[in-house]
């Protein structure tokens, strides 16, 4: 699996994700500075977490409208897998690769904790190592993770089976109590129509090593490594 990790000014979780990719695939990812003109020829492009451009104006707005993201969009249209985590998810929605928007957490606070999710859908290149309905624990760390889209969009996402992760309570039940940030229909991660782009708020990369207190996140990277070997 050849993977590129895009680095914007203010990106800060690139190390975490690169290590996770290496743990799952045994291969080192390549960092790509946003200003570099060409994207390398890779199987997977990752837009990592952080505060691109300080999260000023709107999270992901400035990065989402940057030249490199236009190039990422072209690659995505050509079928390259794209993974956006946290700020990366925000950037992908701003770029238009994914529908909806991430709003400020309902409780108006930054929230960093281990969150329980359920895998809604194991029929994707990002989640094939999980079983449907599996309960997993990934850390979250965000201020704007509250997923919003209009009802038609939400219905479509669900109808097309494009919701991959949902927030759940500790037992793995998808309910209000488990919805840590107010996201519509507990949505934590979604696919694009062609199912080659995944955006998600939680950080699977911070659950890939026993020393981090859990390895539930490894499955996501292993799924990718498996299809993209």
């Amino acid at each position, binding site marked *: 699996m050849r993977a590129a990790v895009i680095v914007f000014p203010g990106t800060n979780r690139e190390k975490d994700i690169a290590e996770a990719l290496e743990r799952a695939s045994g291969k080192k990812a390549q960092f790509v500075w946003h200003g570099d003109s060409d994207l390398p020829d890779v199987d997977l492009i990752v837009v990592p977490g952080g505060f691109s451009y300080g999260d000023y*104006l*709107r999270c992901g*707005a*400035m990065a989402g*409208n940057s030249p490199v993201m236009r190039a990422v969009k072209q690659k995505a249209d050509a079928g390259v897998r794209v993974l956006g985590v946290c700020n990366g998810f925000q950037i992908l929605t*701003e770029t238009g690769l994914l529908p*909806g*928007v991430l*709003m*400020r*957490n*309902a*409780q*108006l606070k930054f929230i960093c904790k281990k969150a329980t999710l359920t895998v809604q859908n194991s029929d994707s290149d990002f989640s094939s190592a999980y079983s449907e309905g599996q309960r997993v624990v990934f850390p979250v760390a965000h201020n704007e993770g509250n997923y*919003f*889209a*209009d009802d038609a969009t939400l219905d479509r996402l669900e109808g097309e089976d494009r919701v991959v992760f949902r927030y759940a309570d500790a037992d793995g039940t998808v309910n209000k109590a488990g919805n840590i940030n*107010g996201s519509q229909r507990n949505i934590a991660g979604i696919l694009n129509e062609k199912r080659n782009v995944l955006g998600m708020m939680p950080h699977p990369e911070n659950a890939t090593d026993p020393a981090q207190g859990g390895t539930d996140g490894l499955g996501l990277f292993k799924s990718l490594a498996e299809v993209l070997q």
Partner: protein
Amino acid sequence: MKATVTITLKSGVLDPQGKAIEHALGALGFQGVNDVRQGKVIEIDLDAADPTTAEALVKDMCGKLLANPVIEDYSIEISA
């Protein structure tokens, strides 16, 4: 020329910040507050031949960057 862009959440989109302010005003003893909404204002000092050109330019900025049409509305005011 000065452009003032006011960006507000579309009606129907929940505004937790506005709600929090409303709540805090109540806690401070202010009465009769029915609703609070919070938005952004962006002031741009720019060179443009005339107000119409300026407005067109700023509209383009809103479309490309300043506002997110999924949840936000915007209005533009131009002054000299």
